[in-house]
Each structure stands twice: as C-alpha cells, then as structure tokens.
C-alpha cells in the first residue's frame, strides 16, 4: 500500500499539477519517453563531453533511460558479485534465504532457458550470456515498477539493442559452429526442391531478421502497455475530479500494477528463452 501511495503520489506530483493544461497524451509521453538529463552533474558532463554526436549519428548524451540502465546494471553487480562469493563459500548450499532466492532464479535460467536449447557441453558456456540478459532485463523491468524510476526496457532503442545482440549471437555462433558459408547455406532447410531455393533463401534471411525484431517489439510493447494503462487509470481521477472514480481507478491501477510485476518476470523470461532458442538453433543446420 505504501508503494501504491508513493506511486500515485509521484504521478500526481509530476504530471497532475498542471493536469488542466496537460492533455493525457502529454502525460503519457512525459512518462514513457526518454529525456536528456540537463541538470546536475550528469547535465554538466552531457554539455562538456558528450554534446557532439559520435560518428554524426550517435547522440551519446546521457539520458534518463541510460541512467536507468546503469542503475539496473549496478543493481545486478551489487546483487550477484556477493552472491557468487557466498555460493562459492557454502559448499553444501547456503542457509541464507537471500542467496537461495537468487540461486533459484539462476537455476531457473539454467533449467528452463539454457538447458532445453543447448547441447549438454555448451550449457556452461551459454549460461553467462543468458543469465546476464535475463537478470538485466528483469532488473530494468522491475526498476520501472518503482515510483520515480522508469522502465528502460519500455523503449525501442533499448530492446532493439538487446535484440541486436541476440541477432549478432545467432549469426556469430552459427558462423563459428557451421563455418562462415555453411551457416548461410544452412539457412535453407535440407530436402527442399532445388527450384524453391532461390525463393526460400530470401525468406529465411528475412526470417532471421524478423526474429530479433519480434523480440524488440514484444518486450517494448509489453513494458509500455502496462504503464500506459496505469497512467490512464490515474488520469481518470484528474479527468472526473471525483472520489468514486478515484477509488475505482486506483484499484484498477493497483491491479494493473500487480499484473505488471508478473509481466516483468514473464517478459524477462520470454526474452531470454527466445534468445536462447534462436541462438541454440543456429548451432545446427535445420
């Protein structure tokens, strides 16, 4: 309940003050789009060192979303490096609930994400990447659930970046395992009639790129949609200026908030498991 109060509070204090002037679209855009940070220490760094575009296209100024990603990454480091030490120290399993909680999640990644999609002796090699992607996405997702924070994964550039790494993984692993040419030749399934190959090859190439594209859109849309619904529920209070609507919409947004907590886990899992599936299947020709 305290979280909910904070949550409502943060939305009302940041967007509700000028509710009469701001349209719903503005509020949604304010909460769900990126802003370059122009104040404080980071603002100064942005102005002094990062104001010119890298290679003319990459605007490297630190934005709110970049900051959120860094916080998520930092949380990962803060959580997992001590966990690693404790796990290593406790040969028969730690008694600590905190350690066991993360162990369960790591085992979950191992059993549900990596193991079904990789050959036995590659599981250990694949674990670091998929653990990283699962927990990074999970932390980004959950960070957005904290009032005052934002969901970095609710942005196409972020999810696109992660999906691009999956694509690079697919192509890279495929080319290493099947040979640079074998991989591209293996895209077309064996046993298709020769005259279909010119047709199949472009389709498979498109399919190759559609996979990470779908990853991008799925994570982005899932993380954005819930926030939009929560904001709209809360905006109803400002629209109708009535206590009864307030009770209903706060309850509604609480429900969506809980659903979002679930979605945060599910989407992190889906992103990791689909990445594993794509990369794992690129190890062998179809």
């Amino acid at each position, binding site marked *: 309940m305290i979280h909910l109060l904070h949550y409502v509070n943060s939305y009302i204090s940041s967007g509700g003050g000028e509710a009469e002037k701001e349209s719903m679209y503005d509020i*949604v*855009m304010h909460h*769900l*789009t*990126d802003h370059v940070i122009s104040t404080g220490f980071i603002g100064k760094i942005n102005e002094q060192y990062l104001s010119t*575009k*890298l290679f003319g*296209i*990459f*605007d*490297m*100024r*630190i*934005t709110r*979303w*970049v900051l959120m*990603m*860094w916080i998520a*990454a930092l949380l*990962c*480091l803060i959580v*997992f*490096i001590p*966990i*690693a*030490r404790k*796990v*290593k120290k406790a*040969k*028969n*399993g730690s008694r600590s609930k905190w350690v066991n909680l993360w*162990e369960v999640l*790591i*085992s979950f990644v*191992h059993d549900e994400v990596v193991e079904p999609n990789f050959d036995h002796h590659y599981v*250990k090699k694949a*674990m*670091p*990447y998929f*653990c*990283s*992607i699962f*927990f*990074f996405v999970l932390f980004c997702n959950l960070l957005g659930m904290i009032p005052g924070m934002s969901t*970095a994964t609710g*942005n*196409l*550039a*972020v999810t*696109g*970046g*992660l999906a*691009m*790494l999956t694509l690079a993984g697919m192509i890279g692993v495929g080319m290493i395992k099947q040979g640079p040419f074998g991989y591209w030749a293996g895209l077309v399934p064996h046993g298709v009639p020769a005259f279909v190959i010119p047709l199949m090859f472009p389709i498979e190439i498109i399919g190759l790129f559609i996979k990470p594209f779908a990853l991008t859109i799925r994570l982005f849309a899932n993380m*954005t949609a819930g926030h939009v619904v929560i904001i709209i529920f809360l905006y109803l209070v400002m629209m109708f200026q009535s206590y009864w609507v307030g009770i209903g919409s706060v309850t509604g947004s609480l429900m969506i908030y809980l659903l979002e907590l679930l979605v945060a886990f599910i989407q992190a899992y889906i992103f990791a498991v689909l990445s594993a599936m794509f990369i794992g299947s690129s190890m062998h020709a179809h």
Partner: protein
Amino acid sequence: MEVLKEGLLKVDPGLFLWTVITFLVLALILWKAAWRPIVDALDARAEKVRGDIETAEKNRLESERLFNQHKEMMDKAKEEAAHIIAEGKSDAEGLKNSIVEKANSEAKDLVERAKKEISLAKDKAVTELKAEVVYLSTEIAAKLIAKNLNPNDQKAFIEDALAKIRTVQ
C-alpha cells in the same frame, strides 16, 4: 519513418549504442565475477548431490543385503537352538529313565540282599536255637536221668520238648 524520430516509437541511436555498451560491459563483468563461480559451484553441488544419492542407494542395497543375511543367520540360529533344546530334552528324558531304572533295580537288589541276609540270619538263629535246644534238652534229660525218672516220663518230657521246639520253628 517519421514515427521513429519522435514519440513513443522513437529509436534513438545514442540510446541504442548505450544499451549495447552497458549490456556488454555488464555481461563481461558478471561473467568473470559472478556467473562463472556460481555456475561452477552449482554444478559441483549438483554433482555432489547426484553422487550422494548414488552412494545412498548403494548403501541402501548393501544394508538390505546385510539385513537379509542377518535374518537368515538369525533363523538358522533359532532353528539350531530349537534343535539343541529338543536334543537336550530327549537326552534328559533318557537320562531320567535310566536313572530311575537303575534306582529301581538297585532298590530291588537291596531288598533282595536284605531278604537274603535276613533269611541267613534266621537260619543261623534257628540253627543256634536248635543247638541250644538240643543242649538244653540234653541238660534236662541229664537232670531227669539223674532224678531217675521212669522211662515213660522221660519219653513224655522229650516229646513235649520237641513239640515245643517245633512250634518255635
């Protein structure tokens, strides 16, 4: 393409690059500092648990085997004990019977001997008595003779005495 430049669907190349950089750095640090030790430790533990289960299974089978062996031995021991008890019982019975028999026969012997001794003693006594009687009779006869009894009286005396001796006998 206009929609990618502004609004919700905006794809900012800078943010894209930051994402890739952030994630790669994070993955690299965690790989070295966290995932490798954790996965190693978890694998080692899983291996240990598997080994422990195997050992436990082996121990279970071993103990079952020992238990069966033990049970067999117990059964055998019980049987043996029963056998020994039965043997002891029959031995004791035999011994008892022989002892009783022996005792009986000994008692019989004893009685027999006693009877024999008694009869011997009686015979001896009778013989002695007879001798005494003869002696007494002779004495009496001598006395009577000395007194000069008539032959009839004498005869009556002797016959009387003899009759008396006969009743004693």
